[in-house]
């Protein structure tokens, strides 16, 4: 059974069967990653462009690695290194790259909606690697995968997303994906970091980190953007840590909790160092699983 769409623009509206298929396929690829030779010929002859209009290290490396493991030919385009700075429009840039005959485009951009825009101007399969504060579907898929790997299910779990929900593309994709897979989702953070009407998506909102720890099976803790937040949406990082930081002491309220973090971590802000390195978190598993999940997405779209 193939996926129902030839693009992965977000998890909004993606049916449960598709998510299930991606996660199951990822399980196969996850095994490949443990082999001595970590390469399969699945996407041999396919050309994939990584269009990164916003700086990214881990997502780009993860995608690149996934592409190489699948034997695809890959090209990297980063905004600073190419013609966008010379005043070329986004559309012209994409048209030029497409003229070189590419099969798939992985795109990261600071504007929400760019992946949708790409589907109108390109014939390639489009994979969203993060658009503005909108969606980051492969991150959410690897979160789902990691939760399922650890807790053996997603359906019926209580998951709380903690931190700057308003500026986070990870939050929105997680909300859509988790709800589709049957989890009960809440968000927790200072009110300035919770976007208006987010309840309409079907999530509960509260501002009590201790309650979040007590009542949930999983916390997905988001990164606080150091440069952006202090002084505007929160008074200081110290105050954020005091009221929303996950510490060893706080975790004593729930010794079974699972902690995810999309990285990079700000130690001493959203997570204390002890928690970041401690027994409850699976942060590095997420990173490994990310490669497998991206392999699954690339494979399923590339062989559709």
């Amino acid at each position: 059974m193939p996926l129902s769409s030839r693009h992965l623009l977000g998890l909004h509206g993606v049916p449960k069967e598709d998510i299930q298929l991606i996660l199951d396929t990822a399980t196969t690829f996850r095994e490949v990653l443990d082999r001595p030779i970590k390469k399969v010929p699945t996407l041999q002859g396919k050309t994939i462009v990584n269009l990164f209009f916003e700086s990214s290290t881990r997502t780009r490396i993860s995608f690149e690695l996934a592409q190489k493991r699948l034997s695809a030919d890959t090209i990297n385009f980063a905004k600073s290194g190419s013609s966008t700075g010379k005043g070329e429009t986004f559309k012209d840039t994409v048209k030029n790259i497409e003229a070189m005959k590419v099969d798939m485009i992985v795109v990261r951009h600071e504007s929400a909606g760019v992946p949708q825009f790409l589907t109108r101007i390109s014939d390639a399969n489009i994979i969203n690697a993060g658009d503005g504060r909108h969606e980051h579907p492969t991150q959410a898929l690897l979160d789902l995968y990691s939760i399922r790997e650890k807790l053996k299910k997603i359906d019926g779990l209580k998951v709380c997303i903690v931190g700057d929900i308003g500026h986070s593309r990870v939050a929105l994709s997680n909300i859509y994906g988790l709800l589709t897979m049957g989890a009960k989702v809440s968000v927790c953070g200072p009110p300035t970091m919770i976007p208006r009407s987010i309840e309409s998506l079907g999530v509960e909102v509260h501002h009590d980190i201790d309650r979040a720890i007590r009542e949930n099976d999983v916390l997905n803790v988001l990164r606080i953007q150091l440069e952006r937040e202090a002084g505007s949406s929160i008074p200081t990082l110290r105050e954020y840590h005091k009221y929303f930081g996950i510490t060893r002491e706080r975790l004593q309220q729930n010794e079974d909790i699972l902690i995810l973090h999309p990285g990079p971590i700000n130690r001493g802000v959203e997570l204390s160092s002890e928690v970041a390195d401690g027994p409850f978190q699976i942060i590095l598993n997420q990173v490994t699983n990310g490669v497998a999940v991206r392999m699954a997405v690339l494979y399923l779209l590339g062989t559709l």
Partner: protein
Amino acid sequence: MQIILKGLKLIDPQVGLNDKNDLLIEDGVIRKIGELTKEDQSNAEIFEFDGMSCVPGLFDMHVHLREPGREDEETVLSGSNSAAAGGFTGIACMPNTNPAIDSAEVVQSIIEKSRRHLVDVYPIGAVTLGRKGESLAPIAELHEAGAVGYSDDGTAVKTASILRSALEYVKMFNSPIIEHCEDESLAGGAMNEGEVSTSLGLPPIASVAEDLIVMRDIMMAEYTGSKVHIAHISSKNAVQLVRDAKARGINVTAEVTPHHFTLTDESIKSYDTNYKMNPPLRTQEDVDAMIEGLQDGTIDCIASDHAPHSIEEKEMEFIYAPNGILGLETQFGLVLSELVHKGHLNYEQVVEKLAINPRKILNIAVPKIAVGEKANLTIFDPELIWTVDIKKFKSKSKNSPFDKRLLTGKPVSVINKSKMYFEDKFIEI
């Protein structure tokens, strides 16, 4: 020269007209209304307009012509042609050109360029030099050159103190200050804040940004006793603020655009930048409040905020694309489809909102359908079903979200300054 317009339903609430009659126009002046004799008909060119209606020439008080500065997007000429095609005989053009309309020379050059055109073009002068909000533009000189109102459109007048000066200064001419109401510190987003912005992940603009400046401006109008006109009102609360202010006798008027009484932020789900404008599309509640405001007179007029943008500027990532859409050639069709045929407004109210009130606000003589008056008329087919086609627009730009939309009611012809626009041609009459 004589022309006869036959079979028209003439509608003009100023003279209590609403019935089918023939019109005889001689040298651009209405000579006879009603039964025409054989003699009347012998020398005249006759136009058959059976089933169509005729109202005083429509006026759009909020148009961006882009000249001087961005003549690739629109010029005085192309914008005037677009107005004529859209059923308008008069427009007022906003000063956010480059250079801004902040000197008599720019006012004169726009008026000069439109002198021989059917459509009357009235420049709106900037309130402050360069629209920077720092020092007053030479308002008296602008007035003398022909400006009919003052605005820093694109932004609100920056501070209450410079707004106060402007409001007091324009009392000499009884001109309005036309305000783009948006609090600067809350500005900068890409769409209305709410459920949809949250689900689309686009940076939001809070509707309270509009309400705050509407409130400030109402209080300033009350304090100074001057006229404030709220441009493109779009939020429910702002409509209520204007309603309350009017009830208290404060000199405030308001306009709404067709897109703000037709579309909601749900349209942005496609990330089509033709739905990006400022003020942004809001919710169904707000749309309903616009219609209610039009019905009870809180909103005095309808104006397009016609904002041409080049294809390459609009075909961009959503957060970078400029705000604004075309309006002149879809406005009247949308008014007829969305307001008249849905039973929200009658034709008399439409004439008030689109012909009488905007001119009154700007102190421009209002044309009447009466013997001895200059013929300044809009003729339309109220029942014609047509499809908007941006390729047929007279505007130099194409940025309309209404492309391919089915509308009921279409302008057919306009007459003004002894000229007639009919079937794509300008004719001397």
